[in-house]
């Protein structure tokens, strides 16, 4: 137990993303309303985005822009002083993917609502069974 607490504290970013991910997954599995499932899905995707963003960060690191000013090229660039920009750039793409997934999903939800006049999954299934 005494070993576990430092482990959790030292890697708290991983624990946070796991908790968020489980909240999202729970909503997707357990919720009955199709839009609530979508909210769960978005939390799930966001947790992975946070995971990527957190692995690029460094303590005391700053934005990765090198000054081309007076001392340009005179001093050595130390990567430890700069945040790793690559995971952040990747996540810009992942955000676009998750927004477009959400868009398609909401369009489908509208289509389903127009057809069945409800978004509760059990009511839709009951209606389908009755046919």
């Amino acid at each position, binding site marked *: 137990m005494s070993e576990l607490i430092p482990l959790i504290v030292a890697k708290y970013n991983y624990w946070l993303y796991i908790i968020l991910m489980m909240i999202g*997954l729970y909503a*997707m599995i357990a919720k009955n309303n*199709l839009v609530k*499932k979508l909210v769960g*899905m978005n939390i*799930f*995707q966001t947790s*992975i985005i946070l*995971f*990527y963003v957190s*692995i690029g960060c460094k303590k005391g690191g700053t934005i990765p822009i090198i000054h081309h000013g007076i001392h340009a090229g005179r001093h050595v660039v130390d990567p430890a002083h700069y945040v790793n920009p690559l*995971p952040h750039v*990747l996540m810009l*793409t*992942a955000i676009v*993917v998750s927004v*477009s*997934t959400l868009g*398609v*999903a909401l*369009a*489908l*939800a509208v*289509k*389903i609502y127009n*057809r069945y006049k409800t978004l509760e999954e059990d009511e*839709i299934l009951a209606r*389908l069974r009755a046919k």
Partner: protein
Amino acid sequence: MNDHTPALLIILPLLFAFMVSGMAWIKKSLCYPLAVAGSGLCAFFSIRVFTHVLRHGTMQYSLGGWEAPWGIGYHVDLLNGVVLVAVSVLAFINMIATRKAAAIQFPEKEGAFYALYLLFIVGLVGIVATGDLFNLYVLLEVASLTSYALIALGEGRAPLSSLNYLYMGTIGGCFYLLGVGYLYIMTGSLNMADVASLLPPLYESGAIWVAFTFCMVGIGVKMAFFPLHVWLPNAYTYAPSAVSSLIAPLMTKVMVYVMIRLMISVFCVDFAFSVLDLGSAMVWLSILAIVMGAALALAQKNLKRLFCYIIVSEIGYMVGGAWLGNAAGMTGAILHILNDALMTICLFLAAGTIHYRINNLDLDHLQGLFGRMPVTMACLVAAGLSIIGVPPTCGFFSKWYLITGALQAGQYGFMAALLFSSLVNVILFFRVFEIGYYGDPGHGHMHGSSPETRTEAPAAMLAPLLILSAGLVVMGVFTGTIVAAVIDPIIPAGLAR
């Protein structure tokens, strides 16, 4: 210095997709020719890339001139070259074959349909051509998003099943992304070849195991591997016929390709078989997939739904073959990707053609179909025989390699499952043939025509179907050449011969 064909493969259909969706506002009748041009060019360039790879070896292309570990690289070797040809050519043939069906099913939305169709090709071709793990994720989502939209074009339950597919597919995609994240933490690279060279010292690390598991589960969802298959039957059954004959043969097969690519080019066979020792566990899972897919197919009353469960079972063949851990099994799995794409597109095109004429695919509506649509049914028989595995057709040969691999590996359960599913396929198809041949049309719903009238589908739909069915036999006859020229060189040296 750079041959740009690998980039053109992806950029051309993308440009044509925008042109088609723009043209939908100006002149609707031009949408279809533009779409045919886009997918035809894609097929042409993929054949050129493949012949180039056959003659001169692996092709590397760096997007924007940024060299491989930093920029995104496209890497085409024999494995993805041949899958590229299969994907783009089958998509092109399907576009021609389903024109009439598409024009009837969504007359107002032709522009949107063909734009999505081209984007779907972009996604699949990109997944196959790319040599970058994150780029693969993005293109995977491009292919998935377009397939959700295409499936939702159907009637009845289509939007609901498409939304369920979206939930499952997003979980799959996110798991894959998470796996790539772990790989990035450990290696600091996203290029497949670069990651493969950095991994061996890290094989014992727990993070790599987690990365591998997340990637495999994510891809397992997307390819509908048995316990994760629940989205597939509804999505493919309720999709419009022009869409299901596009997505059903290609999407799942491309995902099997991704699994094999990760196994042999990123994690390498040593890791999959020696370090993790997952071989027999995965083979047992695929035995379960084959048996359950076959058993569930027996219970179906709708032709298209029956084919969907056959796909679930065929995915088991390929995954099992890849995980047998020897050269024969891997050869069988790769050969079966090609053969199964061809067989499945034949089945779904035949089903689409029948649907075009009689508007119903329930088995008890198929009475007397041999008399009314002899050519279509002949093609269905050819595809059915190939799925069963009757010698001159290609299905026999890949099954032969898989069974040889199972015997070499001592996996008799896998061999038994293959034989069991072949027997079940015999029952499934001969039941369909029996209804079509002996079923009394008088009891069926004839829609006003007398039982003797031939109501064969138009030649524009039949010609592609006939070409594909002939392809089944041609592929079978030339199996030896294909295996020697294409598949043998890509079997990694670490696998037992």
